[in-house]
């Protein structure tokens, strides 16, 4: 397909097929297909796996119904973020955890080291492939190609169906801020699904480059870049994914941090110029004091200006004027993301 490829956590993946900007804008208007088979898929199964996962993850698992999934964080004892993941309740005592590519191995070990007797943990990454169909037109595409109605599927719900005789799991989830679906199918047959979806005139392939600019516009953090073991859900501005009413690994440390306050917190940075912020650029106050660092930055194709995420001293708030210094030196303002708010992600169908 003439794609530009990069090595990402040991997987050879497409950065773009045509152009990042074109793929980005196409996703905001039509539907794009992303190959995200690099993401890890772990399964936890057995009696009381709910209780086990509730104790391991920050968000509540026990209230998930079968057919529902939820975004959550997994912390170490110090409250540092080991990973961000989506947990699917496949059955009463069976869960799929969709984790980041770079952390699949360490997650498997971490979960395994806490696993009580009687529960089973398996890594299904290589046998189960994953493609994402994202964009406001994705519903009609999916219905045309799969031949069944996904209209009733609400945000963060999934169905297990069959396509050409094969089991396929479809969830209404994604990483773009648009209406979209994530599809899981036998790795041996994923190319058939890919080709069938791509044959639809509203669908074009999109690479990791567009995936990155799309997620940044809606303020979703990227693991390994914006969040990692050096930050907690409080400093990463992800506290809404923490359920304080239950016990979980890392909670004691988080509570202390909440009481004492954090020094820096993740916030958006926005500039009227087009010059992209880059990972590692420093943020300075108007008085010239260094107050933070950019963790993700890009040109925003939807907005036509520079956007980024940065850890900034909590004394500085949205609207404050700052200077970003990297290869360039330019004025920006702190901004409460999301930057782009026109997305169809929560559209009622």
């Amino acid at each position, binding site marked *: 397909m003439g794609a530009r490829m990069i090595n990402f956590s040991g997987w050879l993946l497409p*950065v773009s097929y045509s152009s990042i900007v*074109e793929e980005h804008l196409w996703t905001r208007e039509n539907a794009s297909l992303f190959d995200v088979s690099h993401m890890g898929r772990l399964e936890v199964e057995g009696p009381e796996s709910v209780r086990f996962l509730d104790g391991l993850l920050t968000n509540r698992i026990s209230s998930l119904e079968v057919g529902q999934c939820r975004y959550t964080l997994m912390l170490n004892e110090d409250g540092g973020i080991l990973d961000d993941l989506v947990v699917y309740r496949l059955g009463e005592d069976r869960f799929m955890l969709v984790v980041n590519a770079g952390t699949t191995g360490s997650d498997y070990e971490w979960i395994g080291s806490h696993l009580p007797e009687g529960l089973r943990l398996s890594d299904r990454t290589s046998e189960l492939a994953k493609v994402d169909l994202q964009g406001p037109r994705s519903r009609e595409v999916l219905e045309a190609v799969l031949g069944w109605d996904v209209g009733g599927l609400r945000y963060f719900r999934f169905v297990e169906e069959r396509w050409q005789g094969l089991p396929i799991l479809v969830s209404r989830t994604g990483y773009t801020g648009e209406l979209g679906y994530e599809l899981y199918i036998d790795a041996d047959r994923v190319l058939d699904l890919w080709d069938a979806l791509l044959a639809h005139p509203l669908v074009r392939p999109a690479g990791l480059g567009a995936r990155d600019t799309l997620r940044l516009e809606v303020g979703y953090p990227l693991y390994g870049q914006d969040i990692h073991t050096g930050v907690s859900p409080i400093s990463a501005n992800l506290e809404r994914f923490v359920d304080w009413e239950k016990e979980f690994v890392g909670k004691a440390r988080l509570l202390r941090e909440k009481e004492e306050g954090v020094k820096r917190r993740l916030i958006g940075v926005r500039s009227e110029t*087009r010059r*992209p912020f880059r990972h590692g650029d420093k943020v300075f106050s108007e008085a010239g004091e260094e107050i933070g660092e950019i963790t993700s930055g890009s*040109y925003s*194709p939807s907005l036509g200006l520079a956007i980024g995420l940065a850890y900034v001293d909590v004394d500085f708030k949205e609207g404050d004027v700052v200077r970003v210094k990297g290869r360039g030196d330019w004025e920006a303002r702190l901004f409460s993301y999301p930057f782009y708010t026109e997305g169809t992600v929560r559209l009622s169908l």
Partner: protein
Amino acid sequence: MEVREGLLYSKEHEWVKVEGDIATVGITDYAQESLGDVVFVELPEVGRVVSAGEATAVVESVKSASDVYSPVSGEVIEINQAISDSPELVNKSPYDEGWFFKVKMSNQEELSSLLSPEAYKEYVAGL
């Protein structure tokens, strides 16, 4: 990928068009293709004196940032404001509307170290 006849090339993927003692500088089709969508360009001040091989402009795409080196020494006498306002011109028209700056050359012998279109084609094929 187009390598245009009548131009000289650097190994850093700039092209030079020579008219008398004026050199117009831009980046090649290969360079714009490798960068992807150009979203920002920083141009030198008119009047700046540059040496051959000196970082003179900056070009940034969604994913990366690169210096643009002046392949010749001399004084910058004109810049292409159009690519500051519409950086996508660098992708759309790298050899025409997407030029970067013009240098009044102080040492035309430097041109002999640049590549011919054929030599540049071979060079790129080997990358």
